[in-house]
Each structure stands twice: as structure tokens, then as C-alpha cells.
């Protein structure tokens, strides 16, 4: 395995070994040459960037404290947009004790609205990849932010359970910013560091679900102190996430840039780059059984995380008789652990891959997600506040790190359909959230505490599905790679996604390159022919 330097870029490079040509959500995947022939002509293109870039002008380093155009700026605009959408989607949750009195909601109403809040994004996340291809990452993001802002503002009109549910449903569509953010970072950052970059963007964006539990009760309290009655104050409080969305939308459009070389509309990108056919890409994604397994698995890590964002504040408020803002602060700690938990999950996945290859990644995922489920059971059983908080923190670490670990595996499931599979996995998160909220938290059948424990048990059961993810070339949790000489090659797996005619046209070249680089997933037993990571060896000083 090639030596990794100790810059930030070396942590969590879950795309380790992937070629720098990785377009996560673009269908156009010709090769290095086709792409660079379409970049803006200039005498020394790389000189005008603040960071070292590759031949696609994607940044090769990741410096979180910088806001330099265009790469780091895109990163920050991307994750903050995603963060803002998380704030809006879960803004109602910490205020439910007030809202339920104002609108005369039952537990069923509250639960259904919670399901609705995460359901919209199942579809918007699926569509977002194509939208970004059509409009570019900036407009993709800005559309989500600025078209869902009216939904946030319309909380002021809500008068009953039906209205509450509709508004939460419409706000929830903006969670597709997860996809637009990943798309944007993937066109801005090179494949070797994209794992870390996406892990940070994903984790820091998810933090919004925690911050909102603090922000909304605080805003509510200030508005109440300023003289409004509670039933008006919570409505005014919703203007804050609304404003944030509009402001971010404008910032994205004015400060951001679609590609390292410019915006989509000014670049002559649509020249002779042949786009892959959407139907084909979809078909190969659907044919691969691992897609479904990942869909379910993410549903029980990210899905559970979103469910908790919806129920945990009310849970602490009711069960331990806390003040609204106290319950909010505890609930916030859950979401805020994302700041480090998700990147650590990605890092753990990468480290285990160094020694044990893909099998290490699978075991890491299973361990993290199962412990998350276990601590969720404990959280439901805890009757004293300090124990509940401890269980909650351990639980948060487990599931959030599992989210990071899953995206350490996703890039290897398919080369041709990577974008769709990432989108589908993301959608699975929302689906899982709806799926867990419906039976466990939307009726008076279970006490919320029992709902939590049952959800944890269900998560542990479904996480066993990790054992079924098997790669012929690398093996699975319990089985080694096949001994068949032909199918145990990475090339066989990735080239199988192309038909003979397509291979004749040479469309599979990218997959071949990718296959070669993915030999690193064999772990320490990577072929000693020394070609496991040719691109890394080329630039040892820069990850």
C-alpha cells in the first residue's frame, strides 16, 4: 500500500485508489483526455488556482479553514447549504411541546408529520443527481434552498394537523442538498481526498439536525420575552430558518461557481462529451443487489439519526420533566456529535481497508452500526437522566460513524452507476427514517422509550445484512475472495457493467482504470506487482 502523508487529506480517504476522474453524479465519464479538452483554454490554467490541482482542475488538497475560490468556497457553500436545510427540516421537533398544544395534535399526528418531513427527500434525492447535471451544482442547491423557503415561512398559516403535516412534508424536500453538496465537492476535489471532503461535508451538514434543537428553543424564548404569546412566538421563530435559506441561496449564486473553470452556462461543456445513458446507468444500479443492501443499511444508520432528530427533544422533555431549552440542549448534543463522528467513521473504514481490504470495511461498518443499535436499546431502557445522556452520546457516535463507514464502501459497488447508487443510498436514509417513525413513534401503541429500544433491536437485526455484501474479488465478512482466476479480478467485476458493443467502443476504459486502482481493497495482500495505486505513487507529496 502506498505511503500516505500526514496532511488532513490522508484521513478518511474512502475513495482511496479511485482515479481522480471520479464524477460522482455526472453521467459523463469519458476519460482524462476528453474532459480536459473542454476546459477553458488559458496559458497556464493551474497557476490561477489557490491550491495544487489535477488535470481536471480539481483541488488536490483540502484546507477547511480556507475560503479560496473556487474549491474551498464551493465546499463551504455546499455544506452550509446542507446544514441550513437540516435546520429547517427538523426545526419543528424541539418546539413540538408548544405546537402540539396550539394545533391540538395527537401523538399520531406528530408521528405522521415526522414521517412526512423525511419522505419528500426520498424522491428529491433520487432526482437531484440529474438536476445537477442539467443545471449545475449552484442552481441545484439554490433551487432547493429558495423554493423550499416559502414552505418554511408558511408555518405562520398552519392551523391544524393536516396543515402541519403538509408544511413539514414540503420543507423536507430540501434535504436533497445532501446530493447537490456531494456533487459539488466531487467536481471540485480530486478522487484521493474526496472521501474526507465528503465525510466532512456530510457530517457537518448533518450537524444542522443538532443545532436546530438548540437554535429554535432559544429563538422561541427570545421572541416570547419580547412579548409574543407562545402560540405566536413559535410561528415567528420559523422565520429564522427561512431567512437562513434565502440568504444561503443568494450567497451560493453570487459567490459560488459550478466547476473549477467557471459556471455551467458559460463553459462549453456540452460539446462532444458523450453522456452515459440514464436508463443504462439506472439499470446497472438496480441489477446490483448490493444497492438494495446499502439502501436498507443506510436507512438504519442515517435513517435512525433523522428519526432521533425528530423525537429526542420531546422525549427528554416529557420523560425527565425538563425545560424546553434544556431538552433542546441535550437533543442538540446528539446531532452535533456529527462534527467528528462521521469523519471518524470514514477514517476507520479507510484504516481497516489498509490492513484487511474491503473485508475490513465491512466489519467496521457492522461493528459501528450494531453498537449504535445496542446503545439505542440502552437509551430506551435508561430511567435516570445521566445514564440516558451517556447512552445517547454513545448511540450517536455509533450510528454517525456508521454513516461515514457506509460511504467508504459505496464508491466500490459500481463504477458506472456510482452517482445513482450514492443517490439511492442517500434516499435509503430517508426511507429508513420514515420506516422507523411510523410503527415506533406515531401511535400510542408504544411508549417512546419502548419505541427507542425496539428501533435499536430492529437496527441490529437489519445490520446483519452487511454479511451479504460479497465482492467476488475481495470477499465478504465471512467468505474470502473466490478462487476462480477470472472472476477474482477487479476488472471482471467493473467491466461486467458494460455490454460487448460498448466495450468495442472503448467506453469502459474508465472502469478499467478504476479497477486497477481498486486493488488496494485487497488489504495487505495487495498484488505485489506494485501497480496497486499508480496515481498515488505519482504524487507522493500531495495526497
Amino acid at each position, binding site marked *: 500500500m502506498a505511503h500516505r502523508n500526514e496532511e488532513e487529506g490522508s484521513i478518511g480517504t474512502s475513495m482511496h485508489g479511485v482515479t481522480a476522474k471520479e464524477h460522482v453524479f455526472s453521467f459523463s465519464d469519458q476519460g482524462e483526455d476528453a474532459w480536459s479538452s473542454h476546459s477553458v483554454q488559458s496559458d497556464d490554467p493551474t497557476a490561477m488556482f489557490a491550491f495544487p490541482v489535477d488535470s481536471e482542475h480539481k483541488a488536490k488538497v483540502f484546507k477547511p479553514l480556507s475560503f479560496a475560490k473556487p474549491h474551498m468556497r464551493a465546499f463551504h457553500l455546499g455544506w452550509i447549504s446542507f446544514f441550513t436545510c437540516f435546520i429547517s427540516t427538523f426545526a419543528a421537533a424541539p418546539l413540538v*411541546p408548544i405546537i*402540539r*398544544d*396550539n394545533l*391540538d395534535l*395527537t*401523538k*399520531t399526528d406528530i408521528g405522521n408529520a415526522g414521517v412526512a418531513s423525511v419522505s419528500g427527500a426520498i424522491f428529491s434525492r433520487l432526482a437531484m443527481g440529474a438536476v445537477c447535471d442539467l443545471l449545475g451544482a449552484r*442552481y441545484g442547491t*439554490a*433551487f432547493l434552498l*429558495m*423554493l423550499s*423557503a*416559502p414552505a418554511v*415561512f*408558511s408555518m*405562520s*398559516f398552519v*392551523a391544524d394537523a393536516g396543515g402541519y403535516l403538509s408544511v413539514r412534508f414540503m420543507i423536507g424536500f430540501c434535504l436533497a442538498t445532501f446530493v447537490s453538496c456531494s456533487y459539488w465537492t466531487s467536481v471540485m476535489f480530486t478522487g484521493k481526498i474526496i472521501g474526507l471532503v465528503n465525510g466532512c461535508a456530510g457530517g457537518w451538514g448533518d450537524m444542522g439536525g443538532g443545532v436546530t434543537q438548540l437554535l429554535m428553543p432559544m429563538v422561541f424564548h427570545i421572541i416570547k420575552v419580547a412579548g409574543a*404569546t*407562545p*402560540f*405566536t412566538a*413559535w*410561528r*415567528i421563530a420559523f*422565520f429564522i430558518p*427561512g*431567512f437562513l*435559506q*434565502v440568504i444561503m*441561496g*443568494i450567497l451560493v*449564486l453570487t459567490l459560488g461557481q459550478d466547476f473549477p473553470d467557471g*459556471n455551467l*452556462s*458559460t463553459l462549453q461543456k456540452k460539446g462532444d462529451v458523450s453522456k452515459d445513458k440514464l436508463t443504462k446507468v439506472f439499470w446497472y444500479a438496480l441489477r446490483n443487489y448490493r444497492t438494495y443492501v446499502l439502501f436498507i443499511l443506510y436507512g438504519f444508520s442515517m435513517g435512525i439519526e433523522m428519526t432521533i432528530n425528530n423525537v429526542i427533544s*420531546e422525549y427528554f422533555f*416529557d420523560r*425527565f*420533566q*425538563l425545560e424546553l431549552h*434544556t431538552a433542546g*440542549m*441535550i437533543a442538540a*448534543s446528539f446531532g*452535533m456529535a456529527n*462534527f*467528528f463522528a462521521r469523519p471518524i467513521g470514514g477514517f476507520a473504514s479507510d484504516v481497516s481497508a489498509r490492513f484487511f481490504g474491503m473485508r475490513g470495511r465491512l466489519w467496521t461498518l457492522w461493528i459501528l452500526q450494531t453498537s449504535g443499535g445496542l446503545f439505542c436499546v440502552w437509551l430506551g431502557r435508561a430511567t*435516570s*437522566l*445521566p445514564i440516558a*445522556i451517556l447512552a445517547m*452520546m454513545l448511540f450517536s457516535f455509533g450510528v454517525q460513524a456508521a454513516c461515514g463507514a457506509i460511504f467508504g464502501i459505496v464508491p466500490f459497488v459500481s463504477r458506472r452507476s456510482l452517482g445513482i447508487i450514492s443517490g439511492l443510498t442517500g434516499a435509503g436514509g430517508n426511507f429508513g427514517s420514515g420506516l422507523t417513525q411510523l410503527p415506533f413513534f406515531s*401511535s*400510542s401503541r408504544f*411508549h*417512546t422509550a419502548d419505541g427507542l429500544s425496539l428501533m435499536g433491536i430492529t437496527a441490529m437485526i437489519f445490520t446483519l445484512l452487511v454479511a451479504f455484501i460479497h465482492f467476488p474479488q475481495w470477499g465478504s465478512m465471512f467468505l474470502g475472495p473466490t478462487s476462480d482466476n477470472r472472476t477474482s479480478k477487479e476488472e471482471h467485476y467493473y467491466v461486467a457493467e458494460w455490454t460487448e458493443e460498448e466495450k468495442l467502443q472503448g467506453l469502459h476504459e474508465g472502469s478499467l482504470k478504476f479497477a486497477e486502482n481498486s486493488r488496494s481493497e485487497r488489504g495487505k495482500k495487495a498484488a505485489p506487482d506494485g501497480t496497486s495505486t499508480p496515481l498515488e505513487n505519482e504524487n507522493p507529496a500531495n495526497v
Partner: protein
Amino acid sequence: MAIHKIILASFLVYLMIQFSHGATKERLFSDLEKDALDVTAKPSRQGVLDAGIDKLSITWKLSSTAKKQANFKTIKVKLCYAPVSQVDRPWRKTENELFKDKTCPHKIITRAYNKSSQSFKYTLDRDIPTGTYFVRTYAVDAKDHEVAFGQSTNEAKTTNLFSVQAISGRHKSLDIASVCFSVFSVLALLVFFVNEKRKAKLEQSK
């Protein structure tokens, strides 16, 4: 992340302090003396009352059957949910343990105990939710422990109930502001979009 840990630690300490005055944990509602006080609650008008506007005339006096009146120090008058308003709403559940019981969350008034008949005209607060209610008075001793109670309804909580309609919390000015900002958001997006398309067309035609 050190800050994060410090905040969490100080919270744990704060909450443990808050939580540790649980001396009332094991005291049960069923231990209280029933019907120690005769309570009546008369709405100011017929039909569903409006929160923030309508009033209740509440009177309470010592019942002839009361025994523990020597301990009565203060009387706490509270607004309580009738069973119909507790359905599918576990946060309003009636529990026997007094500290867990959520039946009567709304305080009306607290007065020192007086043998003679007391009355109070209560204007429904603006944060009272929509629901069906009755009034209960708790007699509390010097240690702030409930000793007895009386309520304006029968034991099954089916008689003499009254309904309240909450304020909506909506305001015309809020609605207008909401529409304005929504329109601004959509318009701004369109303006940017159209502008950029126009610029791109100009560039291409050059």
C-alpha cells in the same frame, strides 16, 4: 471539541442537581384525601369558551367530610384535562405517582388556606390548548406536599366539564410577512436564473 465536552459535563452536573430533589417521588395520588374541598367552576357563558377572553368563576370551601384540614397550609387551584383530551396524548397522562402525573399542568391561583368559602374569577390564559377541562384544588401542607384535593367534577371525571378553544396564534401581519418573503425568495431565484441565461446567450452569440 473540548468546549463540547465541557458543556456536556456542566449540563450533567446541573441536571443531576435539578433531578436530585425527588423527595416527592413515591407520593401517590391515591393516598390523598378525596373530596376534602367542595369546588365549583362556572364558565362565564354557555358553549365553548375562548382562551384569553372568557372567564371561569371558581369557588372552593372546606367539605363537611374533610378530616385532615389541620395540615392545610395553602390551596393550589389548577386547570385539568378531562379524559377525552388525554386520548392519544401521552404527555397529558394521568399517573398515580404525583411527580409523574400530568393531568393538571395549568396553574390558576395559589392562596393560603382559609376555612371560609373562597372564590376567584379566572380569565383563561392565552396559552391554554383546545380541550375539555375541569378544575381541581390541591390542599398542600407546610412541606409543600399535597395532602388532599377536591375537584369540580365527579370521580370518573365525566360531569361538569367545560370546553375551551385555544387562540390560533396566527396574525394577519405575520401572514403578510410570510407571503412577502416567500415571493421574494422565488423572484430572486428567477431573476438570477434568467439573468445568467441571458448572459450566456450573449456570450455564445459573440
